[in-house]
Structures are given as C-alpha cells and as structure tokens.
C-alpha cells in the first residue's frame, strides 16, 4: 500500500507540475575540469593508475563502500589492474592470489552446517563492509554508503563528479548551519536555502554524510607517486571507471576495427551501386 501511495503521489506530482508553483531548486557547483587517459574513443586505461586506484579503494573506500558486482578475479582479467599476459586465467594470477589472502568470506561448513568464515578465493565477490543495509546505516549515522560498482556510470559526467566530490570539501561559509554528522560539499546536489542565514546568495551544493577522506598521503603508493589529495582522487576514479565497465578498452579496440571494416565495405557497396545503376537514367 505504501508503494502504491508513493507511486500515485509521484504521478500526480508529475501531472500537476504545470500548475504547481516554482519549487525550490537544487544547486551544484560546476564540476572540476580534469581528464584521464581512458577518455574518448582512443583513450585507454593506464594500468599503473588502476593499480594505485585499487589501492585507494582497498585502503580507504572499502571500509564503508561495497562493490557488489566485482570479484577478485576481475582484478587479474584482461584490461584489469593486475592483468599479466602470462596468466590468461585470472584465477592463477599471483597478484590476485596474494590480494585474496587478506579476506575471509562467510560460508557454511559442509560437515557441521555451522556458519563459518573461510579464506577467499579469486572467484569470490569483493567482501562487503557490512552484512546488510541496516548495519551499514547504523554505522554511518543513518546514511547508506552507495555501492561503487557502477557509481561512475550512475552519475551525470561520473568521473568528474566523483573527483569533484572527493576533492571538493571545504569549510562551510559563515552563516551556514551544518547538521550533525553532515559535511558541506559544493559539488553535492542540494538546496541550502533553509540552512543559510548568512549574507548574500545561498551557496551552491549540499550536505554529504561522508567526511573528507583523501587527506594527503592517506595511502602510500608502491610506485613512488606522490599521494596528494588530487592524485588519490584521480587514481580511484580511474579504478572505479574501469570497474563500471571492465570491457571498455576491448569495446573501443573492436570498435576501431569494425569502423575501418565498415568504411571499406560501404565504399565497395557504393561502387557496386554506381556500376549497377550506370545505364539507368533516374
């Protein structure tokens, strides 16, 4: 019944938009202009950046954010952060095997039927930080940390959006009431009207339940790259973009070949068309 009421309310809301007074508008600061190696038809993921990005996810994000669509084997598959041509089967990849040693996954003991934890294998899905949504909310002041598997695709201009959020934290301007357990971020969509008592225009942005995470040197990169806030954000966004579409490089590679083939084929068909029609006046 709850769902029905909500659904009906939503539709009546839509249909009556025409007559409704102007509602409060959500605002968001223009996203930061950053670029990655994976962008555009010729862009490809930078494997070292993916490795650094996985490290940021593993050391920082994974404390609260799940990635339910990812398995450890994915890290070693073609195009992945730890892919090695010597190990076409990602389950044999030594990096992947090392990574899974850190994890234990819930299972059932087949002799006793007891709930146990066993060592993870490359075939296992990423271990979740919380057993269920209630536990996740209880640990995060009622907010649910979103699953990150598709976060880059699930947001408008995903890479720049996530980067801007991660690096965009700032002290709230004087005159802003920030609710307990919330943080001001100009890149978070929101409406500050009711929380603004300062002079001048209402600031852009909204409140986010996640505090600033990527302090400088929050992770230590194995390849010696300096772990500034910006670098960590850039790297983790690259990793998340890869995780959102692990076959993106393969898609573009095949696409290039297909386009070349189609251009030639189209030319051949055009020549055939001209030849066959050459004696027809039309």
């Amino acid at each position, binding site marked *: 019944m709850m769902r029905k009421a909500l659904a009906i309310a*939503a539709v009546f809301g839509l249909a009556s938009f025409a007559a409704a007074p102007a509602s409060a508008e959500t605002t968001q600061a223009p996203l930061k202009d950053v670029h990655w190696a994976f962008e555009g038809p010729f862009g490809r993921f930078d494997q070292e950046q993916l490795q650094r990005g996985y490290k940021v996810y593993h050391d920082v994000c994974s404390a609260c954010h799940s990635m339910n669509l990812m398995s450890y084997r994915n890290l070693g598959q073609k195009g992945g952060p730890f892919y090695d041509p010597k190990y076409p089967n990602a389950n044999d990849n030594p990096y992947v095997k090392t990574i899974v040693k850190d994890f234990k996954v819930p299972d059932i003991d087949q002799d006793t039927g007891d709930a146990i934890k066993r060592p993870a294998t490359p075939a296992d899905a990423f271990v979740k930080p919380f057993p269920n949504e209630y536990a996740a909310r209880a640990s995060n002041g009622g907010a649910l940390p979103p699953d990150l598997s598709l976060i880059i695709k699930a947001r408008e201009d995903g890479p720049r959006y996530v980067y801007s959020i991660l690096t965009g934290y700032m002290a709230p301007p004087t005159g802003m009431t920030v609710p307990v357990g919330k943080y001001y971020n100009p890149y978070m969509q929101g409406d500050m009207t009711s929380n603004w008592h300062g002079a001048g225009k209402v600031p852009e942005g909204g409140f986010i339940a996640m505090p600033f995470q990527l302090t400088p040197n929050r992770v230590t990169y194995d390849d010696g790259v300096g772990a500034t806030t910006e670098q960590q954000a850039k790297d983790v966004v690259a990793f998340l973009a890869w995780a959102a579409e692990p076959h993106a490089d393969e*898609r573009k590679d095949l696409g290039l070949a297909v386009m070349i083939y189609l251009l030639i084929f189209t030319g051949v068909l055009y020549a055939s068309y001209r030849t066959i029609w050459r004696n027809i*006046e039309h």
Partner: protein
Amino acid sequence: MSGPSTYEPKTGIERWLDTRLPIIRFSADLLDFPTPKNLNYWWTFGGILTFCLVVQIVTGVVLAMHYVASADLAFNSIEHIKRDVNYGWLIQGIHANGASMFFMAVYIHMLRGIYYGSYKAPREVLWILGVIIYLLMMATAFMGYVLPWGQMSFWGATVITNIIGSLPVIGPAITTWLWGGFAVDNPTLNRFFSLHYLLPFVIAGVVGLHIWALHVPGNNNPTGVNVKGKEDTVPFHPYYTVKDGFAVALFVLLFASFVFFNPDGLSHPANYTPANPLVTPNPIVPEWYFLPFYAILRAVPNKLGGVLMMFAAIGVLFVLPWIDTAKVRSMRYRPMIRLFFFVFIFGCLVLGFCGANEPDAHPFPGGSVGTFVDADLNSFVWLSRLGALLYFQFFPALLLVGLIETPLPTPESISSPVLPQGATASPEKKG
C-alpha cells in the same frame, strides 16, 4: 504478390515444387518486383527498418538466454551479461542502442511517407499497417526499457502505467491488471518480459502484411505520379538491393559509432542505479523517442486531458489519408503545405526539447517573466503548448490547404519529369 509472374521453372525439381509450394516463384517475384526507378535515399529506410527488426530479434533472443526476469536479479543479470558473458557487452549494447536506431529510422520513414503523400489512395491500408507497427514498437520499446530494472525503468513504468489509470471508469482496473498487483513489482516485470519477447514477432507479422500491402499498388515515388509502364520501373534486384544495401551500410556506421564509442549516450545515468520504490529520481524522463509525446502529456493542466491529447497525437495518423484533401500526392509540387509540414517537424523537435526538461525551468535566458494563466510564460510548460500547437496545426492544414492550394504542374510520368516553362525545380535532391 500481385501482377503476372515472370518466373519460369527451369529444372525438374523446380517444376515439381512449383505445382506444390511455389515458394521459389514467390521469392523470384519479390526480387523482380517492378520498382519506380526514381526512388531517392529517403526510400531506403524500409530496408533499414527490416534490418533493425532482425537485429533486435537476434540480439534479443541471445540476451533472453542470460537475462533473469526477477525484481531481485534482473539488474545484476544485465550487468552479468555485460561483464561475464562472452561479447555480452556487445550484444547488450547493440540491443539497447538498436532501439534508438530503430526509432530514428521509423521517424524518417514516417516523415517520408507524409512528405510524398505515400498514405494516399490506393495506399491507405499500407499506411495504417505502418501506424500499427509504430504503436507495437512503442509498446515493445517501453516494456524493454523496464527490463533492466534500474531507477528509470521502474519509475518510467510507474508513470506510464499510471497514465492509463487516469482513464475514467476502466482505468484503475486496467492498471491493476497490467501491474499484476497494486504497484509496479515483480509480477509487472515478468509479464513485461513475456510481452517484450512476444510483440516483436507480432511486429514481424504485421511487417509481412505491410510489405504485402506495398506490393499490391507498388511503391509510391518522389513525384507521386503513378507508374505508367515498364519504362518507369526497374526490377527490385539488383537495383534496389544494392542501393538499400549501401544505405544500410551507412546506417550501420552510425549505429556502430554509438555501440562502440558512446554506448550510454542515449540512455540515462539513473538507470545504472537499481530500482528503488522509495526513492524517486528527479527528473523522470522517458527515452528520447517518447519525449515529444511526454511533453504533450505535461502541457495540459488536466491529467486526463493530457492523456487524451497524447493519444490523439498518434491516433490522428490513422485518419491521415482521409484528412488530406489534395489531389496531388507529393509535396514536391505543393509549396504551400510544405511550409506547414516543416513547421510540424519543427514542432516535433520543440516538443522533444521540452520533454527532456523540467516543466518549471526556463527555456530562454532571463528567468521568470511573470505568470500567464497558470504558468510562467518563460517555462517549458508554455513552450510545450507552443510545440503542441505547431504539431497539431498540420492536420487541419492538410484538410484546408488541399482545398485552396494550386499545386505546381506535375510531370506526365516518372520517365518524363521535365517541368513546363516557369515551374520551379524540385526542392530536394534526387538520389
């Protein structure tokens, strides 16, 4: 299908088969079908649409092998297809973008039919079958968009099914019947999947009738003048197989550029979040090919009125052959109605633009200019109303302009399209 057959069985087995199931004769007659020799590239979209239907059915059958129609599993099963099934990302990408390509082609095909008067006698049944195919396509595409069970899938389904619920007396009962319950939920997803698999084959059947109805009077052509004799036509094969083939190849180039380089360009990011009945995405927008109708729906303050206007926008197409009073078919020789036609196309584009935006937002810079009747004059509400006016004006115009317009002289026949002195040349290039 029509006219005398020119097929001569040459071998014993062909003669044997010809007296039992003349399927070779049928195919030979299709290939030899006399087709006007002056068809331009706008006529290649029939072949392109056939290609689209086949592509959607083939990729769809493969997707159905991996897809799970369950509210709990549907979203992840699509991701499983894109991540773990061999070339699943390609098959799913073709299918999802194929819907958009299909609609792009069908809109061009329909506008071509209107411009050249292809719906006029003796092709009324051919046209009506086409409108039925279009309606079936809309139903199929809508249900297909629900299957990934993302936020936009779920809320699109909720909005559209509730539209039907606004019909008086029977509406709520129909909605409950469509839902299989009291909200969009697992039973809705299951029946939508079933129907999404069924309807393409219904479309294929009606396409068969559409082609049959085409082969009785034969093709219209850019002059709109009837075929007078053999000198006006060429056999379909090889002349139009090669021309349609070339056009299909160009179309596939565009198709592939989306599939390989911008696979999400025509969809909405919200559909990468699993359906959640407790969180409404803002705004809820349909796929681009439904935007003009969505704008008409929202342009009317009364909900039922909006629904009726939206249905009228499509329903009016059924009676197009009888609204148009002109004797001349092709708009090439009807300069006056041509203006109304281009205003109509412009109206469709304006409506599409409005459908993609929030009704209260301001389409023009400068912000609010004050309320007029019930909404800000500088709002998408009023722009939608203007768009709807530009859309609907075309139909009374067809009726009235046909009565008062003096058409340009039409050629004697397809083979002698030489215009008399003083007449203007044709406005569009011949292909």
